[in-house]
């Protein structure tokens, strides 16, 4: 059976998902973001909020105000009508301290690929990434654009707690973690940047569609950068404006 994309998936009476595919692919994600932008502009009654992911858009709605099945058909029609590519997001340079206590899996990842730790850093920091989605926990930024030569399966046993600001990879994905949480991904480094910081403007530094590059930074600079970030400084540098 071949699947017809995009298609409408039921998520109970308060949401539905428009699925564009089931792979991690920059073009697929751009289509998701295009539909998201289209809906923000269209403002359909009863639509509450939207959640873009790598390959789908979940649309939350108020079943008292609108029939979710009817709204789903409307959104699906928009998705099939052809979408304008979204306007390019912002570009960020994010400082990362790689290896050592900051990235405890750097050497094992290097070993797995038969590379030196410096080569892994060069490949990871040399990538041009796109924020495909924010999800799981507040401010977790999932990136597309990882060098395929770095891809590797997740750890068989997740770690009970990994620190806030962890820069990690899992499968073909790269991640910037905002808050401490369990993780089965490989930890390459840490950034002092707070992607999620209540009380700071903006609360969430990154948005889906933003471009991200990583800048290797000496461990000696960690304390100063971390202090600045804790005081509300973005620390990440905006490079498109």
């Amino acid at each position, binding site marked *: 059976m071949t699947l017809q994309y995009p298609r409408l*998936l*039921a*998520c*109970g*009476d*308060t*949401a*539905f*998902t428009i*699925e564009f595919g*089931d*792979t*991690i692919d920059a073009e697929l994600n751009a289509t998701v973001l295009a539909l998201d932008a289209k809906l923000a502009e269209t403002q359909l009654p009863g639509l*509450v*909020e*939207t*959640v*873009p*992911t*790598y*390959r*789908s*858009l*979940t649309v*939350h709605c108020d*079943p*008292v105000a609108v*029939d*979710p*099945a009817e709204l789903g058909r409307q959104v699906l029609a928009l998705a099939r009508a052809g979408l304008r590519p979204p306007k390019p997001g912002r570009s960020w340079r994010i400082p990362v301290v790689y290896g050592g206590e900051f990235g405890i899996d750097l050497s094992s990842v290097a070993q797995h690929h038969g590379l030196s730790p410096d080569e892994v850093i060069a490949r990871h920091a040399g990538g041009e990434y796109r924020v495909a*989605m*924010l*999800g*799981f*926990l*507040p*401010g*977790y930024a*999932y990136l597309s654009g990882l060098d395929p030569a770095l891809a590797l399966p997740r750890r068989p046993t997740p770690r009970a707690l990994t620190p806030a600001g962890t820069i990690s990879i899992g499968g073909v994905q790269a991640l910037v973690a*905002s*808050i401490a*949480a369990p993780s089965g991904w490989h930890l390459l480094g840490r950034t002092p940047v707070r992607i*999620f910081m*209540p*009380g700071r403007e903006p*609360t*969430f530094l990154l948005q*889906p569609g933003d471009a991200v590059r990583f800048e290797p930074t000496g461990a000696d600079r960690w304390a100063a950068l971390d202090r600045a970030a804790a005081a509300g400084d973005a620390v990440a540098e905006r490079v498109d404006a």
Partner: protein
Amino acid sequence: MSVTLVVLECGAATTVQDGGRRGYLRFGLSSSGPMDRLAHAAANALVGNAIDAPAIEFGLSGGRFRVEGGSVRLALAGARCPITLDGEQIGHHRSVVLREGAQLRIDRPRDGVFTTLALAGGIVLPPSMGSVSLHRRAALGGLNGRPLREGDRLALAPPPVSGEADHMLDPVAIDRDQPIRVVLGPQEGRFTASGIETLLGSIFTVSTQADRMGYQLDGPRIKHGKMGADIVSDGTVAGSIQVPGSGRPIVLLADRQTTGGYPKIATVVSADLRRLAQRQPGNPVRFASVPLEEAVRLARERAVEIAALPALRAPLLDAADRLRLANLAGNAVDAFSFEE
């Protein structure tokens, strides 16, 4: 002078919740809000508050409280906890005045999980991102981003109506074993026919891995199809039943992760989320599939039910009042046959 609620003691899962936080799902932040929206609305309606006003939610526990600087009218709704005011037992789903110097004691519920304590006027806390609801993982909302604990002091707003009488409402129903209704999908296609039959034909029980983020269920394993148990992450909703490789279903709830990489076999209808949330660890859970139209009808019915609560509350009568009323209505009743 403003009135302060003092926490003398409370369980670990005691949090402040209001209607929840909207608009941040796309950034990975779930809405939080009451685990039992009907109970939250009923408790607030009983004290004349807006139905989404900030209130205290207990999870499988209770606490002891007193007030300083005046008295406050309060009400409890949801899971049935034994409640005493200075040692004297009082009922649920009615309002009562807690006077300065008196002590309110709420014990762990015998039935159900979540109990809402509403205070007339509401709790004064600075909203974080539009809500005072605690999201524990994000350390957001509540009192300084954490649950309540011994020694906490909460400022209360002046009541919307002063000097009003006590009121009562019919208790919100807590059931232990009626089926929880679901709509199949979004990824029911990732399961074998027997996997779906396992979901709909088995009796699961709530495991001890159950909190505001989600309830893991014990019971038979649900079988995935040939494509396995991993999907590329997509969005979740309150009620998503995700099934990881272990085959043990987890129902995601108010403080859930916003996206996930496990297939979701079905979604609990929004009207039944509170019924599931009120099942204690060890309580049975059966699922029944309904069409989407039925789920929408139930959601609309629930919205009407909640909106009607403020008008449905009735002045609290003592037994003598009720006897007098019954006689006035022409149905002569003697004091001995009048059932409490």
